[in-house]
């Protein structure tokens, strides 16, 4: 047996705890089975209990599986073990949550059996798979967040466990609510189109859940590899970005409804690029917030590049750097497509969007530079300071800037001003950040 899984089973599944959990679950369900009409059914209670155990409690245990090791100073010992990253990852993910899974699985027959009896085996089995994968997705996202946070090396562990829980729960809820999102809005239909294929939201949700859970587990394994001092290389993250871009771009017909504001047709290729570009930019913002942005790593990368060892430097790029590069490339490609495209998007012909688009790229570059710059001031608070700065730049200042809004946001009415301002701001902040990184080297 996986030693890490076994260790967790020793700690989690003691006979007394198993007995207590069994008694608690069966007692609660039995009470609601006997309750008069008007009270929740036993199936509904079992489902609520499942969510409580697998998602609410499970995400906490998944996060603590790493955070507690740091807190109890046993993490170095784990890092020195011979366990492969995958084994250590799944030993923690399923071992630390084994007790909550035990209780959650006790609930499942009470959830699934009524569906089986009422709707048949296929809906029941699909519901079973969705529930199980929702739990795994939530817990793996929580574990992934905890691994990302320990790379940042700060000490707010109580808050961190809560943060990990929140990200895990948001992931599970997003996966569950996704099909509902597809069926709201003015274009709501029982089916929807993805890359030209007509799909049912339920089955799309089902397969999306499986795929994203898979990516989450890949992410956990790669984060564990970093903890074990193994080099990840950029290719899996690039593959994920490719997947994300393609996945999101498939919703072009769904977004087209909003883009066709003047009734004309929208260039599907431009719209797909735009959606993929947005997905890359979001991944860059997310990762630049999460990753350490270690000045020593920057200096090392520059040193390798100066020495002509570009291959080594490329293999050691952080995920946010790759996302940043993907966003820049995708934006330039989109600008090229828009330049030769006369079909309107959101009321404007393609060429008219090029300058605002390049201005948006400049503001994006400035935002990323802000994270890097503020991280050189404070390892623990720099990223939150950058978030606050972005809130001021995008929410507060435009309200009071009046005609000067073009200095802060991409403007259709003054595109050249926006473009110049965006890139001037980006260049200034990057230069400042680089100067601070180099100064600290001495």
């Amino acid at each position, binding site marked *: 047996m996986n*030693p*890490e899984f*076994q*260790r967790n089973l*020793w*700690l989690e599944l003691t006979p007394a705890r198993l007995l207590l959990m069994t008694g608690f679950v069966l007692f609660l369900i039995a009470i609601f089975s006997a309750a008069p009409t008007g009270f929740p059914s036993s199936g509904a209670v079992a489902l609520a209990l499942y969510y409580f155990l697998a998602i609410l409690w499970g995400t906490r245990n998944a996060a603590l599986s790493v955070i507690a*090791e740091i807190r*109890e*100073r*046993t993490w*170095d*010992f*784990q*890092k*020195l*073990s*011979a*366990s492969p990253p995958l084994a250590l990852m799944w030993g923690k993910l399923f071992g630390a949550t084994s007790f909550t899974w035990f209780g959650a699985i006790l609930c499942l027959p009470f959830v699934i059996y009524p569906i089986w009896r009422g709707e048949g085996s296929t809906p029941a089995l699909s519901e079973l798979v969705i529930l199980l994968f929702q739990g795994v997705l939530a817990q793996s996202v929580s574990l992934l967040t905890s691994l990302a946070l320990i790379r940042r090396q700060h000490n707010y562990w109580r808050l961190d466990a809560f943060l990990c829980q929140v990200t895990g729960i948001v992931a599970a809820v997003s996966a569950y609510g996704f099909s509902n999102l597809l069926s709201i809005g003015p274009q709501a239909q029982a089916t929807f189109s993805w890359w030209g294929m007509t799909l049912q939201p339920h089955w799309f949700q089902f397969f999306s859940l499986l795929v994203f859970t898979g990516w989450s587990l890949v992410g956990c394994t790669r984060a564990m590899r970093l903890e*074990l*001092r*193994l080099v990840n290389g950029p290719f899996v993250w690039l593959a994920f970005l490719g997947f994300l871009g393609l996945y999101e771009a498939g919703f072009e017909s769904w977004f087209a409804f909003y883009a066709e504001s003047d009734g004309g047709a929208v260039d599907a290729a431009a719209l797909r690029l735009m959606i993929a570009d947005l997905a890359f930019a979001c991944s860059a913002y997310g990762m630049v917030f999460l990753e350490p942005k*270690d*000045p*020593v790593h920057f*200096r*090392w990368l520059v*040193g390798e590049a100066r020495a002509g060892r570009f291959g080594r430097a490329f293999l050691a790029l952080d995920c946010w750097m790759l996302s940043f590069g993907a966003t820049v490339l995708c934006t330039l490609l989109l600008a090229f497509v828009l330049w030769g495209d006369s079909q309107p998007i959101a009321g404007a012909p393609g060429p008219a969007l090029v300058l605002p688009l390049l201005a948006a790229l400049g503001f994006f570059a400035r935002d990323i530079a802000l994270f890097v710059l503020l991280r*050189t001031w404070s*390892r623990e608070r720099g990223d939150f300071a950058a978030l606050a700065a972005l809130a001021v730049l995008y929410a507060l200042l435009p309200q009071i800037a009046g005609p000067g809004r073009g200095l802060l946001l991409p403007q259709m009415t003054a595109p050249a001003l926006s473009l110049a301002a965006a890139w001037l701001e980006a260049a200034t902040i990057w230069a400042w950040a680089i100067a601070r990184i180099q100064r*600290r*080297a001495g």
Partner: protein
Amino acid sequence: MIEIRDLVFEYPTARALDGIDLSIAPKAITALVGPNGAGKTTLLRLMAALETPYAGSVTIDGVDAQLKPREVHRRLGYLPDFFGLYDGLSVRRCLIHAARAHGLASEKVSAAVAEACQSVGLANRLDQAAGTLSRGLRQRLAIAQALVHGPRLLLLDEPAAGLDPAARRDLSRLLLSLRDKGMTLVVSSHILAELEDYSDHMVIIDHGRVAGGTAFKGAQLYIALAAPDEKLTDFLVQQAGIKILQADTSQARVICEGGAPRRAALLQALIGAGFAVSDFGEDRRALEELYFAQLGQSGETTS
């Protein structure tokens, strides 16, 4: 056993290690000493492949720690200065987990656990929860965890911190017995007197550099005479292989290379020359004096 070349390690605000070059001999105990913040712990963590250097290399038993960190992890045991244990597990389960996590085959685990327990003297506490052990016993369990997979190299960071005198004596005996079984040990500590009991070599780290070091075990001798003799210093100067550290008419501290045969020859020569030798042996103050001499500091200013 350990080859370190031009090793540089940086924190965002400071350079912790600045061009360390070091070779650590196999089957010996090497003491890593230096003031607080000198870089000892960082150096140990780099040896254990727990950190990535900015530049330079660490090679453990021929394996590059940066290229193959997991291979290095398999070959060594490491006890950090602040370590933790799985308090909810029994001593037996802690060690079974450690053995299995280090990749020991299932059929070898029981024997390895028994041997590790025997080595550290925990054989009668196998079913006691780790959380109920005293500080000294926790230290022993942590060491047992680090050596249960039979590593050839053991790295210990401040292993005697917080131990009472009896536990420290036991620790010294344990480390010596491990060395005698062929293990290489690197021990970082502030307690120079204790290091002297078991260390074969000393490496001084200061401001992220190697500030000095020597093989000292048995090499530094203290000679005392029952009656003062003016000729003592001149006599010692004439002896081959003897370096005088300090000498006057009634006592001397010398470095005597060449091991036991050379020491025996020196003693014989002293008696033969008519000196009334009242004390002749290993200099118990050797490590501390070497430390301060090589750091160029006085004992009052440094621990």
